[in-house]
């Protein structure tokens, strides 16, 4: 295969991944790595590098719109970025130490979990204290967002230490696997810190770019970011995500979500199998 042919194929595949990722809200990053490694035979380290770069592009692009509308809570985002960035540095460090088989197996497990979670959202709420969390008040995390009839709706933030801890884990997975780990971030914000769903998803998106940038520098220095691979992936995913966000209103998101979860489930099983067989 020549460089031009591969660039076109990679770009087209990334466009579809970014489009579906934006439509379903699962993000395109999670399918990019298995796509590059399984279908195109790209080394998993180059695949993770390209995925991480595309994650920065899509999250920053989407965050721009959400921040402007006033949904993202900048203080919550900034505070928790301390946890995600530290975790991302640890993850990027581990990526250089662990063998590609181990990384592949962890990746597969995360894929399986993402698919499962998108179909069966967890309901357990470990913290149900209606009182305002003192730490959250100290950090000025409580906020408001534009509600349905033009009024600002206020909300309180709870369980800050636990959310902070889970964010560290989300950052570590992001740095290790080159994904945004938006699903885990939303669990920390929505289920644990009890932040309204719309604020959780948009604030998670806001944080993904900084988290990814924290490990991207280390990836660059290690030589994991290959311009020939990253170029079509970054451009394709960004364009796909942009188109996906325009189509969001008209399509049947439920059915798509189901199909996309099925794809992720299949990819997860395939990645684990390939890792165990030593083909990754």
């Amino acid at each position, binding site marked *: 295969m*020549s460089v031009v042919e591969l660039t076109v194929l990679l770009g087209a595949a990334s466009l579809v991944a970014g489009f579906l990722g934006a439509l379903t809200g699962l993000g395109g990053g999670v399918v990019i790595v298995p796509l590059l490694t399984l279908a195109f035979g790209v*080394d998993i380290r180059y695949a993770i590098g390209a995925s991480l770069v595309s994650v920065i592009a899509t999250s*920053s692009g989407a965050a721009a719109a959400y921040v402007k509308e006033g949904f993202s809570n900048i203080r919550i985002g900034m505070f928790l970025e301390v946890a995600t*960035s530290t975790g991302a*540095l640890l993850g990027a460090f581990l990526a250089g130490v662990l063998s590609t088989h181990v990384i592949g197996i962890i990746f597969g497990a995360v894929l399986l979990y993402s698919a499962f979670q998108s179909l069966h959202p967890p309901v357990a709420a470990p913290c149900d204290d209606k009182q305002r969390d003192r730490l959250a008040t100290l950090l000025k995390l409580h906020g408001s967002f534009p509600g349905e009839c033009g009024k600002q709706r206020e909300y309180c933030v709870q369980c800050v230490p636990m959310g902070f801890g889970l964010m560290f884990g989300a950052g570590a997975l992001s740095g290790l696997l080159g994904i945004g780990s938006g699903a885990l971030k939303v669990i920390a914000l929505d289920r644990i810190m009890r932040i309204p769903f719309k604020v959780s998803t948009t604030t998670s998106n806001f944080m993904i770019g900084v988290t990814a940038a924290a490990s991207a520098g280390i990836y660059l220095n290690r030589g994991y970011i*290959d311009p020939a691979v990253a170029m079509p992936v970054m451009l394709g995913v960004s364009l796909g995500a942009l188109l996906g966000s325009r189509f969001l209103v008209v399509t049947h998101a439920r059915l798509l979500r189901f199909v996309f979860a099925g794809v992720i489930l299949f990819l997860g099983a395939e990645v684990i199998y390939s890792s165990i067989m030593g083909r990754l």
Partner: protein
Amino acid sequence: MNRKTWDDKRLQLLIANLLRAGVLLAAGIVLAGGLVFLARHGSEPFDRRAFQGEPPDLRSVGGVLRGVAALHGRDIIQFGLLVLMATPIARVALAVFGFLRQGDRLYVGITLLVLGLLAYSLGVGRL
């Protein structure tokens, strides 16, 4: 809105514009570099199965800048990716400035800490 105040609303708007501009600029540079790269190397066979790691000039900010000056396609792509990585970092720096103007010392500290972690990753990079 008063141009002189730095409330959260104004900070949000500035951050949104910064993010959008950064991504667009990065995509433009990557596309331009990609065209140069494909024009020169497009017909060569592609083999990325084996991991060798990138050559040193594609691994550091200084090396990439030297490559851009020599109009190497790969370095121009890499430069675009650096602009992309710099976008969230610039966003954090803007927030430091915004919180400073608000006189919110706690958040100046928090955002400076995040900025330090990011600078460490891109600047030192070798853990």
